[in-house]
């Protein structure tokens, strides 16, 4: 076995190089328990008007950059493993979005997600689900489907909603949303 150890430095690199492309292609978020598949509504609505996919690597960098100016923000980000957002313009034709909403809701239920908030209005549906593992949050999903737009948000990792406001203040980023 000493032979193996002595030469590992030399020849192990070949094996490592062979496996690198495979590792690079792994989609880290899809393997996480907090990941939610929102399907693809682009056939109906075209490309989402907003698509956000932030993985652990980028979040780590953002957290590191935030550590000096706001340790609190850095602490919050360090608990996140991924952030995904898809927002479609539904243009008064939300049937496909509502269908996807129901399908995703069914999948969440069967996957052990727990409903937190559910609003069923004629013109708008809101759903908030959380995935817990014991006392730890593994993910949060927010889906909002209205006449004008369909919003699908998936937070992977731990997040305390009460800390959102403080974090956004520390970001000092203008976000223009229609909150009506």
């Amino acid at each position, binding site marked *: 076995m000493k032979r193996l150890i002595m030469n590992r430095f030399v020849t192990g690199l070949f094996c490592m190089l062979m496996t690198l492309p495979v590792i690079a292609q792994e989609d880290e978020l899809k393997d996480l328990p907090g990941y939610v598949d929102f399907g693809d509504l682009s056939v109906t609505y075209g490309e989402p008007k907003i698509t*956000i996919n932030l993985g652990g690597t980028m979040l780590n960098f953002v957290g590191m950059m935030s550590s000096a100016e706001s340790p609190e923000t850095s602490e919050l980000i360090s608990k996140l493993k991924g952030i995904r957002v898809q927002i479609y313009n539904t243009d008064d034709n939300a049937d496909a979005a509502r269908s996807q909403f129901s399908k995703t809701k069914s999948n969440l239920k069967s996957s052990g997600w727990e409903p937190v908030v559910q609003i069923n209005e004629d013109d708008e549906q809101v759903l908030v689900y959380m995935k817990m593992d014991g006392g730890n949050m593994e993910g949060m999903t927010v889906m909002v489907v209205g006449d004008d737009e369909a919003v699908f948000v998936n*937070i992977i990792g731990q997040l305390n909603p009460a800390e959102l406001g403080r974090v956004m203040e520390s970001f000092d980023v203008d976000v223009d949303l229609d909150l009506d």
Partner: protein
Amino acid sequence: MNEYDEKWEDRINALLDGELSAADADLLKAEASDDRELARAIVEAYQLQQVMDTVNVERAPDSLRKRLRAIPAEQQPKPAFRLFQPRWAAALAAIPLVIIAVSLMQPDKPSESEIAQARQDMAIAFAYLDKAGMMTGREIESTVGQTMANAVTGSVNRAIQSQNLTSKEKEV
């Protein structure tokens, strides 16, 4: 060599050499099923062993072996420089591969503009979470009144009030 290599090397080597007891082997495999780094270390060690096993050492012809043995020990030239031994030559040749491998294994550091964009994206995502929270609060408020709404969504509402968001749709 990462921490897993150092921690598990003896057990992995024993596993590959068949020197691990069945119980210990099962335990290691069970641990590997929950630990991707450990599993990868085992796979790499196994692949390495496979590669090494394919390296055949050709036996010199008997005539050559006899002639070599006939050379008195004092006449055998000493290696001028031990660095040129095949093992070290291979190691030297591997240095560029080390550099390439290490550089490829390192996550690319995003530029400042990419990080700024990521912060913007996070802010948008969080704003939509707050938006959902506010809609929830409004729904509860319209259903059971202001007191209950504040009790349930107070933290979210406070966060929203502090953000002072403008009312124009964000286009990316």
